[in-house]
């Protein structure tokens, strides 16, 4: 411990006094005299100097206090502002701030462009996502009692998974209403899949979607009527409610009420006209007919619990808690069906759009995906972050340009807070300019983006107060975020150092931070690049994977029960094969109960029944691994034989499946539940019935495809257009009354459609990747330009000393490339994990492997190289005399 020195202690104390702007020197001296008197008196009373000093200081009172007291004593007005405190608001300065901000933009067009363009792109992405999210979240919110409506989702648990079906057994909803008082009402709904038309006189439409619903539809859901009574409109079994646009299409300006429309062959009387269905409804239709007609058209047995045809909705009373009701309803279902592995889930109406990933969902509308939405929202936020980083980076990098301004302002009395406010103001001005640019960008990109994403977003959506506020808020926030660090950094400059000229700007610490930000930017970019490469790889894999069947050049169609058409097709030479079967690419309906010899009790394996005919094998070029396929020449095949796929054979346990007897309970074409015993005659090689997202399920094939309206035709590669023409002519001959439309699809297109959503994801992710790359390289261009400028003299000297241009370019580029490599090293493992979890959604998937990582790294290096080289080469080629002339 050092000895206490009174004089030193008093010196220190005086220093603290001097920091106080209110104390004049004379006053300080007087205080010092007082202190010395106190100390002297205490010491003479026997205290040691150190204690005396401390006590004396305490007796003096704190320094700040004394300043205020002295000022109070001097002032002439009670509320006067001390001269050493700046005025709170100086109008002339605001104008100066504005001028300086605009001058900076004008004089440094390149940097202003980088900042504004980057922020504008980031803001445009963010606003786009806001529009998208608010649209997606707004689905199905217009129903008055929407918050008490639930859809019944049927869950079937088997040994390895549970299958969720968006439909419920047909009699389920009414039974629940009868049994449970909390179920106030129910309604079943589905749409026809365009396979029967609506006609009025000689006008016919196959494209308008016919909704099929219980009469309670219009009391449960809120679709406002223009004419007619929603309560009774569907009471008559041959009544039809049409939307305004359908009414206009068929009846023009005439009153639609009471007009007769023909659906299939039956007359339906218009009993109501409703407003068009809003786009943000998961229930989409052009007209509604009562559900009872399905008994006739689709053999729906309304008393049969095995039948699943409709999506069923229930409305619970206000007091009911779904969490308590759900198990009760589940119990009722498994009791009624005598199956313990069945249960019901109550899906809130508002969740249907974003949170449905079920089998047999309504397929005539564009379903949303919460996961995709999150992915895109994060991507947009990342791009905005990149732009903000650019701003921070450039602003601090160029800080030495503004050091003199900061110095002058401080010398003339500006405080740190004032400067921070000024610089934040500048960045907010820039961010609002960017917001204006962002809205222009959106105006330009919304139409193509809508067609890519299948949405109908418009800038008008931005006019809703919430969204507009959010957009302005994001702009303000990003302005503040981007400006905060530079503002604090700039405002901290010490005027003496800056104005004396000893200040160089960009000290070591700052440079490290700037590099860190570049690493972060390129890390995000590498993440995106890796992601898009993996998504692309998976999509290619799915497109080219051998499905086990040949789906190229197979035309599939739904045919009317007209022998003449089938005969015409079968005898035409241009057609290689024709098979009446459920084609690959069609989801097989409900799993069937299968009992085989030796089945373990408790084995919950579900088999999916597929209806085929003997031509199936040749038409789809499928293969057998064991036994034989159905044959036209063996009569008993239709009634006594089944074929299973390999997965099915494996599920039946060890030993050959061929020759085993099994009992199948399934629904016949007539909608009756049929239990029959068959012999397994063969095992078919596994093929993919549906999307590669799903694992191959056990399938059981029966030879009764000719009872279903499917027809698949393999055509010659050389004669596709003629064959299609021939098919259409044959159709028109066979169906002269145009009761059924001639429609067909190529099977490979149908498989492609499984991945439509994934292709959209790829396209949108691709756009984001490009934007991220664009923003990050903008930042790099700016930084490289700045550094080249800083090093002008160094480069000049190096050249004078004999360095080659190439060497100098390399020197500059090498550093940037090292950062970008570091960014890749950090980001790619994270990207690898993220891609892995996305791939989990596919039962059959690629391994990301090392190639996408190398590709992403190489690509980001090339982009970085291109961004940096231009300025680097310019700097290297400059005449050293120019750089050194003023030295």
């Amino acid at each position, binding site marked *: 411990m050092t000895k206490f020195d009174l004089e030193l202690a008093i010196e220190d104390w005086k220093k603290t006094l001097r920091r106080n702007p209110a104390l004049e020197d004379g006053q300080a001296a*007087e205080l010092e005299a*007082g*202190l010395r008197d106190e100390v002297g008196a205490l010491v003479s009373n026997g205290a040691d100097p150190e204690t005396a000093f401390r006590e004396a200081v305490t007796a*003096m*009172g704190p320094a700040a206090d*004394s300043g205020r*007291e*002295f000022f109070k004593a001097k002032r002439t007005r009670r509320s006067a502002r001390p001269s050493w405190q700046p005025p709170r608001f100086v109008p002339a300065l605001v104008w100066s701030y504005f001028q300086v901000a605009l001058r900076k933009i004008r004089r440094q067009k390149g940097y202003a462009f980088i900042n504004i363009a980057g922020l504008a792109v980031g803001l445009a992405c963010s606003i786009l996502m806001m529009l998208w999210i608010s649209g997606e979240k707004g689905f199905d919110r217009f129903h008055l009692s929407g918050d008490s409506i639930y859809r019944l989702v049927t869950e079937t648990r088997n040994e390895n998974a549970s299958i969720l079906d968006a439909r419920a057994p047909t009699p389920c909803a009414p039974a629940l209403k009868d049994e449970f008082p909390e179920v106030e009402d129910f309604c079943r709904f589905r749409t026809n899949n365009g396979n029967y038309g609506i006609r009025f006189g000689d006008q016919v439409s196959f494209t308008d979607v016919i909704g099929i619903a219980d009469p309670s539809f219009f009391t449960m859901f809120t679709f406002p009527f223009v004419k007619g009574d929603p309560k009774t409109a569907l009471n008559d079994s041959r009544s039809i409610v049409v939307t305004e646009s359908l009414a206009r299409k068929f009846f023009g300006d005439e009153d639609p009420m009471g007009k007769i429309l023909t659906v299939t062959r039956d007359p339906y009387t218009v009993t109501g006209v409703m407003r068009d269905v809003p786009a943000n409804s998961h229930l989409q239709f052009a007209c509604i007919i009562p559900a009872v007609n399905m008994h006739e058209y689709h053999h729906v047995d309304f008393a049969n619990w095995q039948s699943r045809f409709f999506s069923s909705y229930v409305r619970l009373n206000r007091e009911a808690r779904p969490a308590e009701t759900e198990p009760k309803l589940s119990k009722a279902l498994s009791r009624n069906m005598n199956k313990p592995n069945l249960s019901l889930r109550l899906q809130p109406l508002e969740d249907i759009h974003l949170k449905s990933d079920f089998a047999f969902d309504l397929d005539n509308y564009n379903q949303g995906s919460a996961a995709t939405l999150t992915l895109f929202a994060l991507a947009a936020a990342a791009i905005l972050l990149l732009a903000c980083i650019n701003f921070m980076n450039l602003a601090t990098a160029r800080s030495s340009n503004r050091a003199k301004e900061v110095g002058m302002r401080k010398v003339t009395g500006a405080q740190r807070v004032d400067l921070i406010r000024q610089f934040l103001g500048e960045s907010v001005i820039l961010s609002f300019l960017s917001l204006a640019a962002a809205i222009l960008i959106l105006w330009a990109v919304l139409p193509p983006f809508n067609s890519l994403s299948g949405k109908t977003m418009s800038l008008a959506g931005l006019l809703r107060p919430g969204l507009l506020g959010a957009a302005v808020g994001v702009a303000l926030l990003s302005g503040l975020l981007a400006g905060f660090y530079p503002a604090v950094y700039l405002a901290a400059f010490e005027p003496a150092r800056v104005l004396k000229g000893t200040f160089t700007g960009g000290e070591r610490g700052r440079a490290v931070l700037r590099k860190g930000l570049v690493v972060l930017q390129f890390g995000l970019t590498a993440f995106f690049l890796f992601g898009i490469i993996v998504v692309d790889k998976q999509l290619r894999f799915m497109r080219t994977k051998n499905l086990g069947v040949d789906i190229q050049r197979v035309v599939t169609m739904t045919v009317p029960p007209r022998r003449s058409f089938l005969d015409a097709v079968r005898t035409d030479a241009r057609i290689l094969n024709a098979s009446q079967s459920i084609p690959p690419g069609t989801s097989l309906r409900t799993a069937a109960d299968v009992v085989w010899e030796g089945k373990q009790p408790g084995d919950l394996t579900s088999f999916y029944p597929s209806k085929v005919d003997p031509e199936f094998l040749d038409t789809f070029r499928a293969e057998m691994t064991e036994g034989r396929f159905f044959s036209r020449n063996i009569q008993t095949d239709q009634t006594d034989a089944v074929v299973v796929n390999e997965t099915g054979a494996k599920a039946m346990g060890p030993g050959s499946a061929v020759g085993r007897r099994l009992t199948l309970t399934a629904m016949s074409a007539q909608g009756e539940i049929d239990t029959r015993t068959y012999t397994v005659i063969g095992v078919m090689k596994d093929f993919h019935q549906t999307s590669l997202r799903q694992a191959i399920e056990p399938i059981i094939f029966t030879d009764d495809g000719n009872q279903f309206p499917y027809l698949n035709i393999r055509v010659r590669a050389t004669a596709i257009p003629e064959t299609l023409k021939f098919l259409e002519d044959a159709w028109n001959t066979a169906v002269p009354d145009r009761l059924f439309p001639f429609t067909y699809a190529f099977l490979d297109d149908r498989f492609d459609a499984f991945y439509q959503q994934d292709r959209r994801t790829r396209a949108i992710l691709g756009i984001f990747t490009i934007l991220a790359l664009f923003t990050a390289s903008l930042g790099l261009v700016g930084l490289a330009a700045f550094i080249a400028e800083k090093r002008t003299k160094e480069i000049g000297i190096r050249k004078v000393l004999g360095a080659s241009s190439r060497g100098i370019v390399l020197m500059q580029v090498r550093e940037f490339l090292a950062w970008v490599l570091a960014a890749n090293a950090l980001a790619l493992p994270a990207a690898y994990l993220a891609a892995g979890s996305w791939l989990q959604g596919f039962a059959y998937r690629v391994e990301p492997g090392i190639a996408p990582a190398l590709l992403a790294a190489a690509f980001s290096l090339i982009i970085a190289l291109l961004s940096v080289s231009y300025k680097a080469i310019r700097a290297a080629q400059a005449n050293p005399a120019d750089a050194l002339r003023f030295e």
Partner: protein
Amino acid sequence: MGSKDLIAAPAKAVILSLLLSGENYGYQIIKRVRRVSGGALQWSHTMLYPVLHQMEREGLIRSEWKTSPENRMRKYYSLTERGLAELAEEKARWREVQTALRKLLDPMTAVD
């Protein structure tokens, strides 16, 4: 004694009265006030000097830097003519206040 304002309020009168017995300096003033008031008035330097400066500007007192017997610089304050006059007024004012307060705070013993 209580709040800061209450301590500072009579400062002018007290200082003038103390300086009546001759010139004095900060530390001594503080000590005297403390002793005479029996510790009820605890002034600090930072409170005292601004008051002294204010009074000096009003011409009630004058100040002079002198070397003390301990060979240190000290600022001594002494009364002016105006100060003397002011002291009389201040005394009268405080007596009035004193009487008024006594009556107000203890109304039972007060005589009208």
